[in-house]
């Protein structure tokens, strides 16, 4: 308690001392108070780790619900609330409401509800999710589905400015949480299935004017890359690196969208994020590596210039978007302390890179079922694709069977957590495989542009190990590239994890349980069934010196689709019909925040 007050004092002194606090300082001071949950990842590094340890491995079993809050919205609730000095900001899926809650008595300070054209909804491929707000400088930044990025007064909820970041009529929408670095707010774009060209944009926090916009594909200038200075695996990428890898003008409708999470390292002043799939899903019509789709970008946070890039899945043939979170952790790799970036890609490989130079250190499968590539060549960084699973080599109108992972990846956007105490990464995963058949489609602006049929089923059907579960929650050693332990889950684990100094790791399940496990052993210590399936991220904060754990339930998103996989009529492979029961038997729609605490 005293400790906590002291921290607030120190933090506020810091804020005062720094004088004309820039947006960066306000975020940093908010983050430095471990009683807050100031940003999607808990910190700029995206570790989702909290120093709080009141709730620990020995007492977490006594956890109780402290209070709950219904958002009144039915669609899938991804992301999680932000907590700043006694106020909680809760966001919802479309219509993208924001609630400011006084944590003291759980009264509502204000509600923001934008008027958005419902025609935005059908342009959103996979449910109308939103992954949260960003806080800085007394403002709340919300990225609405209709692509409007708005700045709200954190005290009143009044709109300060709004800027249009894309055009839903052309298929662009937004689902991502923005982040604020220094005096700029960063956001991306969704719409890879509509042929939208991805970019990272930085807007000035003061008035919403565009500072810069850097595309994922196209001419060097528009991508903010320098053929001489921007490197991939330590080598300059050369001029026209993107244009050279597309046929004709396909890059203009070539995807590489940026709907995931963004991390930041103050020391390198680099912002890290990944780009999505090249469109269409038919790889035959877009020969070449399709750069820089499926790529990790490290960009200068002031200018947007790319320092390094790394394309994980050149010439995607399976829809393995590279947008998952980048976790910045200082860990030992090969006996040496390294400043790393750890990333669990949709393609099933867990990557460890030097985040300063972009050197590739480790690339190993984090689900043993992964079969589309044998391994990643550490010299070239290229995955060694297995011909049998190449939807391009097999060609159009041919069904490529039993590819692992499925299009939703060994993991989707739901962010992992890193505990510096155990040195382990805690990763929510999918254990799902697919059949994929590409075919010709015509492009029409603003219309879906998919170009493949697919079906999905439990990985056990392919591995033949007799299992039928659809997910695992794993602990990962990013130095060795090894799974430390793995907890099978009936459904895909679609909830962002939380690791704490109390040696507890939290995650939610699609059938609605909030679970706490021992950080070292993975042993389950606590489980509680929330009102709906969990696809939100678990957060923690303190109020009046007491630790709370919070999570949004509200099933939906692409997870809801993955669940229908193999539910019916699937006679070959597994006979265990039990596992195919519809998710609807376990949970129904509805957004509710559940907040947990130890009894007084």
């Amino acid at each position: 308690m005293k400790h906590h007050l002291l921290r607030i004092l120190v933090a506020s002194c810091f804020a005062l001392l720094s004088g004309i606090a820039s947006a960066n300082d306000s975020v940093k001071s908010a983050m430095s108070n471990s009683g807050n949950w100031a940003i999607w990842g808990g910190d700029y590094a995206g570790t989702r780790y909290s120093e709080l340890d009141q709730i620990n491995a020995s007492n977490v079993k006594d956890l109780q619900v402290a209070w709950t809050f219904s958002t009144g919205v039915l669609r899938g609730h991804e992301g999680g609330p932000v907590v700043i000095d006694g106020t909680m900001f809760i966001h919802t899926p479309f219509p993208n409401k924001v609630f400011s809650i006084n944590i003291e008595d759980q009264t509502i300070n204000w509600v923001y509800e934008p008027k958005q054209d419902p025609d935005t909804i059908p342009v959103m491929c996979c449910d109308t999710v939103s992954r949260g707000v960003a806080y800085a400088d007394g403002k709340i930044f919300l990225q609405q589905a209709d692509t409007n990025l708005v700045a709200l007064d954190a005290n009143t909820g009044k709109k300060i400015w709004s800027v249009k970041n894309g055009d839903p009529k052309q298929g662009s929408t937004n689902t991502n949480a923005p982040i604020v670095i220094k005096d700029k707010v960063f956001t991306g774009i969704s719409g890879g299935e509509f042929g939208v060209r991805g970019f990272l944009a930085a807007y000035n926090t003061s008035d919403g004017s565009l500072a810069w916009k850097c595309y994922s594909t196209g001419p060097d200038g528009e991508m903010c890359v320098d053929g001489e200075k921007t490197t991939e695996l330590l080598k300059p990428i050369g001029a026209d690196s993107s244009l050279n890898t597309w046929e004709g003008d396909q890059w203009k409708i070539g995807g590489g969208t940026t709907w995931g999470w963004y991390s930041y390292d103050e020391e390198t002043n680099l912002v890290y994020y990944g780009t999505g799939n090249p469109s269409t899903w038919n790889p035959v019509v877009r020969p070449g590596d399709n750069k820089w789709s499926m790529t990790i970008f490290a960009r200068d946070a002031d200018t947007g210039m790319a320092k390094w890039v790394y394309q994980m899945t050149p010439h995607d043939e399976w829809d393995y978007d590279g947008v998952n979170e980048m976790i910045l952790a200082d860990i030992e790799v090969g006996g040496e302390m390294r400043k790393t970036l750890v990333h669990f890609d949709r393609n099933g490989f867990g990557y460890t890179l030097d985040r300063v130079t972009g050197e590739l250190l480790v690339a190993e499968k984090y689900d043993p079922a992964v079969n589309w590539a044998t391994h990643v060549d550490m010299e070239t960084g290229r995955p060694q694709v297995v011909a049998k699973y190449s939807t391009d080599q097999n060609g159009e109108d041919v069904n490529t069977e039993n590819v692992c992972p499925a299009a939703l990846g060994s993991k989707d956007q739901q962010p992992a957590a890193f505990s510096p105490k155990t040195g382990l990464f805690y990763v929510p995963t999918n254990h799902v495989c697919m059949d994929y058949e590409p075919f010709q489609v015509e492009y029409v602006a603003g219309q879906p542009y998919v170009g493949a049929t697919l079906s999905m089923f439990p990985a056990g059907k392919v591995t033949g190990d007799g299992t039928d579960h659809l997910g695992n929650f794993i602990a990962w050693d990013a130095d060795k590239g090894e799974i430390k332990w793995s907890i099978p889950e009936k459904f895909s684990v679609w909830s962002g994890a939380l690791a704490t100094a109390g040696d507890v790791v939290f995650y939610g399940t699609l059938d609605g349980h909030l679970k706490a496990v021992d950080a070292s052993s993975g042993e389950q210590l606590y489980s509680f069934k929330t009102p709906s399936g969990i696809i939100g991220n678990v957060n923690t904060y303190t109020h009046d010196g007491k630790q709370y754990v919070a999570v949004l339930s509200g099933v939906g998103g692409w997870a809801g689709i993955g669940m229908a996989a193999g539910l019916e009529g699937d006679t070959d492979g597994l006979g265990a019909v039990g596992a195919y029961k519809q998710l609807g038997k376990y949970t129904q729609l509805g957004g509710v925040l559940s907040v947990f605490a130890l009894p007084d």
Partner: protein
Amino acid sequence: MIDKEKALLVRIFSSLIFLTSFVFTSAIHADEAEKTAYKDHVKCAEGEPCKIDLYLTRGYRAFSQCQVCHGLDATGSSFAPSLTDKMQEIDKALFIDRVENGFKGQIGVMPPWKENPNVMKYIDQLYDYLMARSDGAIPGGKLKRYDR
């Protein structure tokens, strides 16, 4: 006179009944034929999964544009209804109207597809494919072709 008139009326009346019932039953027949048109495109042999032809495969491909909402096997998702259920409730004309123009209902927004050639060119195939799914004549997912 009166009897004659009466006889005439009866004749007119009965022919009317005959006519309407004829129109009516043939409408039902047309409707039924429309709903089961897929039968010409599905072949099932004992002990192996049913096979379809290029025509119905085109319907399945058009359906790939719908999978992200209605589920990979058309049984629905948390935000769009099961089409295997819906197809039993609506006729082909309404189906085409819904797909062409979209609509906003109790569950959410169904997008319009009239500008999408990948769907509209194959609207008959799509309808037949979904009817076959809905009647349980074929399972979800990719099916082998019998015509190649």
